[in-house]
């Protein structure tokens, strides 16, 4: 969309900008910062990658690993050494050339205790990082780790000078991406402008991308219809339904990698018994939840998203996904559970989670569970969640492109996000074996078994993968929605007036 200004003199002064091609994007919450190694909030990542930052690898819209700043790589026989070749001609926004040392420094930065990056666990098996020469980086692992390439896609490469600086990048990001950071008006917008030193000739197509922060969904919709915004990259099912069929815009939909879930605390009775967790699954009617909380726009969830076509089992393989109150009651009786059971359920402050909690409350009541819902503020929720201070919770998780990235930290005994304190030796052994294999076929066999086990008796009742939708103004070309909720094609998107 073209910004015109009333004052001719102003227009002269900013010359090129007046006719500039700007993509106006509306997001609900402003990011807390833009340091790619510190901030993991959804909107921070959406703004930062891949517009400002790139990783060694990248993930395409079909969730396959593609080259990024590394043009190719070799993996040693034993799966312990990865050698990456760095792309030529890449420059940072500050003008310095990208070298292997920058890559090594970025990875060290993520592992550094002083920086305390939440991404550290993604590369915690990497024990050696070496810049062999200007264009070669070698990583050494302590054990084979199949998902490494996928993990690296999420780790941005920053200039080596920031290795020990925890603050500068938060406000003024510097990367190698097609856009450079221009301006940040808190609560207003973040503006990125085309980086003329981008290594790909003719990219980016746009002159500017502006991310506006619009908390009310109704307001964002109105802005899209009035032409103030060109793109709402992530809209909920209700908004998608309302915008469907409006003139001059398109709705794109894909299967979300993220999912909603009900977690159970495996360290408190009665949820410490696998039979009880199976009974909970039998009581839930996922389709009804989807109809009510997601406006029907979603599919029942197994442990892995159907978007992961090479890994996920169909939910028809899970016998506990057919609602059966009698079977559930029998199971509970068998397990010696005395009903009614008083359950404290904490709820993520999001409308879909609140609605899921209310429907689940009614469904689980049929089996004698009396749920008390606690709709908490985000800070309190995270604290209770982290400390395992709940009987049950309703939440949403961002998905991962490799099963290990989700399962290992969540269900392995003592895993970093195993807030349920779930511990199962058999499962732990399977998880360890699966991550050490590099053949997809052999890994899939183990992950199939893991999925069957987790679906019914794990500490998580996976609820739904929603439809992920984006609303795009008619004039925007080159945009395709990505299941991980990023604007993956940012370098080639164009706006016609």
């Amino acid at each position, binding site marked *: 969309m073209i910004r015109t200004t009333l004052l001719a003199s102003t227009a002269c002064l900013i010359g090129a900008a007046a006719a500039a091609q700007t993509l106006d994007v509306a997001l609900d919450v402003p990011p807390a910062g833009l340091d790619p190694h510190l901030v993991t909030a959804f909107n921070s990542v959406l703004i930062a990658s891949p517009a400002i930052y790139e990783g060694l690898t990248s993930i395409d819209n079909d969730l396959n690993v593609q080259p990024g700043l590394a043009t190719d790589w070799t993996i040693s026989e034993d799966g312990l050494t990865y050698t990456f070749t760095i792309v030529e001609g890449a420059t940072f926004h500050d003008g310095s050339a990208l070298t292997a040392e920058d890559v090594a420094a970025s990875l060290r930065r993520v592992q550094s205790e002083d920086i305390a990056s939440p991404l550290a666990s993604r590369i915690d098996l990497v024990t050696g990082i070496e810049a062999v020469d200007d264009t070669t980086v070698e990583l050494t692992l302590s054990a084979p780790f199949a998902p490494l390439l996928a993990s690296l896609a999420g780790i941005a490469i920053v200039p080596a000078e920031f290795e020990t600086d925890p603050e500068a990048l938060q406000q003024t990001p510097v990367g190698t991406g097609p856009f450079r950071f221009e301006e940040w008006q808190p609560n207003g917008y973040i503006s990125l402008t085309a980086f003329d030193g981008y290594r790909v000739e003719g990219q980016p197509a746009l002159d500017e991308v502006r991310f506006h922060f619009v908390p*009310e*969904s*109704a307001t964002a*919709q109105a802005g899209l219809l009035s032409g103030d915004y060109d793109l709402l990259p992530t809209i*909920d099912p*209700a*908004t998608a*339904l*309302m915008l469907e069929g409006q003139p001059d815009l398109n709705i794109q939909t894909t299967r979300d990698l993220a999912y909603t879930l009900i977690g159970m605390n495996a360290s408190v009775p009665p949820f410490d018994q696998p039979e009880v967790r199976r009974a909970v699954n039998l009581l839930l009617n996922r389709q*009804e939840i989807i*109809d*009510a*909380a997601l*406006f029907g726009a979603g599919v029942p969830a197994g442990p892995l998203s159907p978007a992961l076509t090479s890994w996920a089992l169909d939910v028809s393989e899970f016998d506990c996904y057919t609602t059966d109150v009698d079977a559930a009651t029998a199971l509970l009786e068998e397990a010696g559970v005395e009903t009614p059971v008083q359950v404290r359920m904490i709820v993520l*402050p999001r*409308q879909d989670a*609140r*609605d899921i*909690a*209310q*429907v689940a*409350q*009614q469904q689980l009541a049929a089996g004698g569970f009396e749920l008390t*819902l*606690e*709709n*908490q*503020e985000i800070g*309190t929720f995270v604290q209770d969640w982290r400390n395992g201070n709940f009987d049950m919770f309703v939440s949403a998780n961002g998905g991962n492109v490799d099963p290990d990235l989700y399962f290992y930290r969540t269900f392995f005994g003592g895993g970093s996000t195993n807030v349920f304190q779930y511990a199962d030796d058999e499962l732990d052994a399977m998880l360890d074996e699966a991550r050490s294999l590099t053949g997809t076929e052999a890994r899939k066999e183990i992950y199939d078994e893991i999925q069957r086990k987790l679906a019914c008796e794990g500490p998580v009742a996976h609820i739904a993968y929603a439809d992920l939708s984006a609303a795009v103004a008619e004039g925007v070309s080159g945009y395709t929605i990505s299941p991980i909720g990023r604007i993956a094609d940012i370098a080639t998107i164009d706006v016609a007036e």
Partner: protein
Amino acid sequence: MSAAVATLRRSPLLAVACGIVVFQVAVALLAPWLGFQDPFAQVVANRLKGPNATNLLGTDQLGRDVLARIVWGYRTSLFTCTISVGIALVIGGTIGILSAYLGGWWDRITMRLMDVVFAFPILLLAIGVIAVLGPNAWSAAIAIAVVYTPIFARLLRGPALVICESEYVAGARAVGAGGARIVLSHILPNLVSIVLVQTSLLLSAAILVEASLSFLGLGAQPPTPSLGLMLSEGRNFLRLAPWPGIFAGLAILFLSFGFNLLGDALRDTLDPRLRAAS
């Protein structure tokens, strides 16, 4: 009693206001016996229906009856607001009258304290209190009470001061009447009309504050029916099914309107100077 009837007859606006308030309060109090549907019962297949014979005001996103939820929402709202305004009246009123009666340092310190609380933006102070206590209807009530305490204190201190300095209180003191007796039998009765008017007006405002807090997700929590919450949820699908959002908004307006009209009409009726002008 007959005096009250005469007053109502003289001021039709007051009669209308009383009618509106009494009707709403009665419906809220008697709701369980008036044959409304179960406000908690979800019929997912029947969600987001417009007004029809079974659901007079339609259904919400989980297929619950909007009318029943509005009536129960009145209960939540009135419960929260009555408690909060009541607490504020008792505490704030006591502080205000004591300040006027005792004067001196007590007056100076407590009133400065009230100024401190009064200086906070209403909604922010309430948000702060709720952030500390955790979001639920009780926290909202306490938050509103905190916000309103200085208002009552400041409001009653002024007139109480005038009465304290008046000749008949001085006379009572002269004949040796005790402090408590003076406050109870001379000061309080003279403040009744101000209290009536202001309580009514502040109840009206409290209803809006409570709705704003629920709108921000800080009041009564789901599945408890709450007007602000219904509005907040309804706004997400206003273009698809406007009913829950529109009716919840109208219900808040109507409830707050009733109390405000009552306060306004009471002020006109009770204020002798205004009466003289007509």
